[in-house]
């Protein structure tokens, strides 16, 4: 029960489907709810295909429709409903108050515009500056992310992957957004570059008190960067809490499985411990607990109904039949 008046983004019961003719209806996001407080970094963790990117795109109303459609639910940014905003209002919001870093830097930049121009474009859209000032500010942003300002006039293909991602970050932060949506910002990069990029994001966050929704599948990154974590599975949040709570009082079997599959550096074992099975087909989701087919615990209720969201300790929520009242109950 955190202080509600500090919440910058609130998603309530969001449901997004992709409706196609060939493959049926893909239920990407199912009644998802989460909050982000001002100045905090919320990690959104899940396997590929869990629906994380869809959530981020939904916040910016960038879901391609067709085939995507927001079926129900609301997203409120600073207590204004995003769903009800006009096109003009949402364009003002994009890039200025809420901006996004995309996953793949190789394709996120326009190949025929200079990097400086791409940053300046964001600046000119939202700030009342003339041409010269826009270029100045864009050059500044380049310097801030560690790229020499003289490289303003170069094209994306002249940069390495890590530098391209820095440009993307510069673009996203140029107008000092209050909420940054970072969709796996380091997945496409080497480990060494990863560290630099994460440090950069953190630095900028500290300086501007930016809230961040950090989408990732890497639990190490979460530990380093996040204040709170939400674990996503098959379009739902199945566990959410502070980093401390999730890492030290793991409740949901899926989350345990995630931690368990990471090889520890101080143990010797012969095989990795993956979670058995695959995530359910989003076009064919079961009407009971979506994790039941893979669950080691295998409770009876899991095979019959969708579990409720239980608060096992202050601020720590789990969607699991067996985690009622904060402790694992025996099978019934």
């Amino acid at each position, binding site marked *: 029960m955190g202080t509600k008046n500090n919440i910058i983004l609130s998603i309530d019961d969001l449901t997004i489907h992709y409706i196609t003719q060939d493959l049926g209806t893909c239920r990407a996001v199912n009644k998802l709810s989460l909050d982000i407080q001002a100045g905090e970094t919320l990690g959104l963790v899940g396997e590929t295909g869990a629906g994380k990117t869809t959530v981020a795109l939904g916040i910016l109303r960038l879901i391609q429709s067709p085939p995507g459609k927001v079926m129900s639910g609301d997203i409120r940014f600073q207590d204004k409903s995003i769903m009800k905003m006009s096109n003009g209002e949402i364009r003002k919001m994009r890039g200025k108050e809420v901006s996004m870093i995309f996953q793949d830097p190789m394709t996120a930049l326009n190949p025929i515009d200079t990097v400086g121009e791409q940053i300046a474009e964001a600046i000119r859209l939202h700030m009342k500056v003339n041409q010269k000032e826009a270029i100045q500010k864009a050059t500044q942003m380049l310097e801030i992310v560690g790229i020499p300002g003289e490289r303003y006039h170069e094209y994306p293909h002249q940069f390495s992957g890590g530098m391209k991602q820095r440009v993307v970050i510069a673009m996203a932060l140029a107008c000092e957004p209050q909420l940054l949506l970072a969709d796996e910002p380091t997945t496409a990069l080497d480990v060494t570059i990863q560290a630099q990029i994460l440090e950069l994001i953190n630095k900028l966050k500290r300086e501007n008190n930016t809230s961040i929704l950090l989408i990732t599948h890497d639990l190490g990154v979460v530990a380093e960067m996040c204040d709170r974590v939400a674990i996503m599975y098959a379009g739902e949040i199945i566990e959410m809490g502070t980093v401390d709570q999730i890492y030290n009082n793991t409740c949901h079997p899926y989350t345990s499985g995630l931690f368990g599959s990471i090889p520890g550096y101080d143990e010797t074992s012969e095989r990795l411990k993956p979670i058995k*099975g695959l995530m359910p*087909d989003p076009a*064919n989701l*079961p009407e009971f607990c979506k994790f*039941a*087919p893979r*669950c080691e*615990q*295998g409770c*009876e209720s*899991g*095979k019959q109904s969708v579990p409720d969201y239980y608060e096992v300790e202050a601020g720590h929520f789990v969607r699991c039949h067996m985690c009622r009242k904060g402790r694992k109950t025996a*099978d019934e």
Partner: protein
Amino acid sequence: MKNKNTQVPPAEVKRRSMFGEAMRRLLQNHMAMGGLIILVAVILLCLLAGVICPEGYDAQNIAERFIKPCVRYPLGTDPLGRSLLARVLYGGRISLLIGFVATIIAAFGGISLGAIAAYYGGIVDDVIMRVLDIFSAIPSLLMAIVITASMGSGLFNCMLAVGISSVPNFARMVRGPILSIMDQEFIEAARLIDATDRRIILKHVIPNVLSPIIVQMTMNLASSILLAASLSFLGLGVQAPMPEWGALLSEARQYIAQYPYLVTIPGLAIASVVLSTNLFGDGLRDSLDPRLKN
């Protein structure tokens, strides 16, 4: 006791080969199927020309020239009193024959060149590509004109000319996929276990380029028919009295004012066959690689 059987039975996954999947998509494509049906219908009609018009394509009857389409002469008669229906049906045989043979010639030459260039790479690739570039500097029609000018007109030379001028297209189309396959690592793996060049080509390379080849052959059929008609129209391809469709149009040209049906009908024949082939080819391409579908 915890019930260990927590596995929900996996959803029924129908096992379909990639080919079967492509066939399914193709069958659902109405335009493509329509095109195929028309093409097959035309082929059948032309094959049955002997039955439908037993008099042949050169049965002249000056008394009955320039008759507009009616019950007795479903497509009318031409300036020499020959039934236009007979001319069109027999002509269809020729046009289609040229189309098919030329496509086979082009495919043979083009695939060999493209495959050799891609497989051996290096200077072999360079030389072959330069030669193809030279051929490409001249549009196909011009190339075909030059070849028939050198070798003379007639049915066989026409087929050869049309076929040769289409070789560069095939070669390029084949070289692309082969080059990208070659890059992939499983070829290296095959080499490591001492598979011979020939085996690699047969077993790995060819199946992967089959799709673009099939599509290209279909499109090439369409363009060959057009090319042959253009040649005959110019008087360079098939010679009179053979009723190739382009030649029919050439004969009809001077009568365009008084007897427009002589112009409309053969042209309609060419257009419908080429259109249906193109529709089918397009549909084939969409179904074989839906990722490319736009």
